[in-house]
């Protein structure tokens, strides 16, 4: 019963961009056949249908996504404890406090660290694993499922498990001792020099499966004929991967990097679960989001918390726009020009 591939592929190239470029009215009408048959009545009926079908989603979306985001921007200008309407307008004071707070700057630094090193660590490993799993090896489908397991398990479980394993008298240090590597044993979670690397490892462990699966899907889009042709031309396996497969994987890599960057900037769950709200800053793993929660809601300073949210959003937005402008542009170019014709 599924829609076959042949039917999907031709239509997916244009329609979304058509809608996305705001040219809904200018684009060919969806149902030319029906227009003339129905009169004025039909037009109203169609409008009613649009309202009934799209209305509920629109209402829920506006109420619980757009309104809170707008309210965050509004509350951010107030000193406000979260009860009654905010009255104590302080202008940009909250923002000044944020940018003068060394703790926020440290959190921002941790975010930047995670953004960069997540890309550097996860990218190459995930590409390597994806190339590997794209070969014909026994148990490939089972391995694919297993690789994805960490991504499916919830952050709380990951956090709880790792906090126990990495405790000073936990399994990891014990295992190192058994292997005669006890000089490696350290205070993984609370030593400020080590903790952020621990965090990086846990994040990589948790999210690398996602990257692998994405890349595998991207690899399936690389036509076999190309690697066959290059094999005929005498290219080795590695040459084929380097000069044929990797470049064709480019769009997938760039999208993954985008998602990874945004995710790293928004990082909250794992840090908050493992380090808690107070320890995170002393262990050197606090992020902008944990700073927001600790100094906003938990401290009862709702206005301030919202200002942090706005800063977090603006930073993410700026990064996203820059990334889109300079990195993703070549991917979207084709799609956009197609939409215009």
């Amino acid at each position, binding site marked *: 019963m*599924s*829609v076959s591939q042949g039917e*999907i*592929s031709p239509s*997916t190239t244009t*329609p*979304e961009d058509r809608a*996305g470029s*705001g040219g809904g*009215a200018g684009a060919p*009408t969806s*149902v030319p*056949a029906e227009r003339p048959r129905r009169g004025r009545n039909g037009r109203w009926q169609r409008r009613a*249908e*649009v309202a009934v079908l799209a209305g*509920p*989603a629109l209402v*829920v979306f506006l*109420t619980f*996504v757009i309104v*809170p*985001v707008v309210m*965050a921007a509004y*509350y951010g200008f107030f000193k406000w404890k*979260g009860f009654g309407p905010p009255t104590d307008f302080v202008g940009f004071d909250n923002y000044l406090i944020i940018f003068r707070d060394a703790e926020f700057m440290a959190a921002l630094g941790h975010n930047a660290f995670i953004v960069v090193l997540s890309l550097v660590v996860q990218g190459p490993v995930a590409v390597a694993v994806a190339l*590997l799993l794209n*070969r*014909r*090896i026994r148990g490939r489908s089972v391995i694919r499922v*297993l690789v994805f397991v*960490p991504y499916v*398990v*919830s*952050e*709380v479980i990951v*956090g*709880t*498990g790792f906090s*126990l*394993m990495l405790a000073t008298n936990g399994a990891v*240090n*014990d295992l190192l001792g058994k292997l005669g590597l006890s000089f490696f044993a350290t205070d993984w979670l609370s030593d400020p020099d080590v903790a952020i690397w621990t965090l990086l490892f846990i994040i990589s462990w948790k999210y690398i499966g996602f990257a692998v*699966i994405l890349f595998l*899907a991207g690899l399936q889009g690389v036509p*076999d004929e190309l690697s066959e042709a290059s*094999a005929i031309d005498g290219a080795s396996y590695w040459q084929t991967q380097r000069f044929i497969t990797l470049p064709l994987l480019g769009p997938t890599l760039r*999208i*993954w990097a*985008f998602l990874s960057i945004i995710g790293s900037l*928004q990082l*909250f*769950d794992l840090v*908050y679960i493992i380090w808690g709200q107070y320890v995170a800053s002393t262990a050197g793993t606090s992020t902008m989001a944990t700073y927001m929660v600790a100094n906003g809601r938990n401290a009862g300073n709702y206005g301030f*918390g919202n200002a942090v*949210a706005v800063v*977090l959003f603006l930073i*993410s937005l700026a990064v*996203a726009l820059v990334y*889109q402008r300079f990195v*993703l542009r070549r991917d979207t170019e084709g799609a956009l020009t197609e939409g215009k014709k």
Partner: protein
Amino acid sequence: MASATAVPTPARVAEAAAPKAPRSSGLGKGGPLTYVVAYLFVGVCLAPIVYIVFGGFRTNAQITEDPSGLPSPWQVSNYVEVLTGSLFWRQLGNSVVAGLLTTLGVVVLGLMASYVLARYSFLGRGAMYSLFAAGLMFPMTVAITPLYIMIRSLGLMNSVGGLVLPQIAFALPTTIIILVPFLRAIPRELEEAASIDGASRLGFFFRMVVPLSLPGVVTVGILAFVASWNSYMLPLFILNDETSYTLPLGVQAFASQYSVDTARVLAFTSLSMIPALVFFSLFERRIVGGLTGAVKG
């Protein structure tokens, strides 16, 4: 955020929508080294999970004495205790209810809105699509504080509604971005044929569109369910009563409450990941298709 949406290489989208069976190719067979690396990687992925599951089968004395050892002898008492207590089941129930309601809401609202966006032409359609797509740029982190205040003033604290409504709202952008191409792909001829046979547009929606878009619907449903199942930040703000906790909060509360009883914490933790793992292994292909669809579709 057009970036995540506007890169549709047709082949890839088709791939994502309907994953192909493995095919023979010139990709080469793996040598022994390939196997070593693959198994090593899988080992690293699974070790912490195995630690959690095995830890539940040990006693605290065993864990203190030999933190990285295997259970000897195997103890089931931790698991039995958790399973016979009411807390685990209650929180499991909360998670299931929240997950199902979120899924239902996302699928129903998302399908209706996507249908309009895909097959009606009206003024403001492009704007509506852009609005939903822009939702991808607003993660819950940014909206959480006002959201909490809103839920509180609506009197929805500690209620399923307070949890489910925002989750539906935040899942809508992905859902719509995945579903719109699916619905567009339904051939125009079908619609014409249906209208000649006397079906109204709504009749066409229920009789043809819903069944034909089932693969996409299943994908977004699973994504919504898994997201709800693992959701942490929203419950953390909305739920503050242990009986209304979902499993992630439950695990955390349990872990701090019984912090000296490590074995029991591990048992509780491993039990709470079983549903997600079972669910995932059942629908792995769909989830993977959905993820790639979300990124490239």
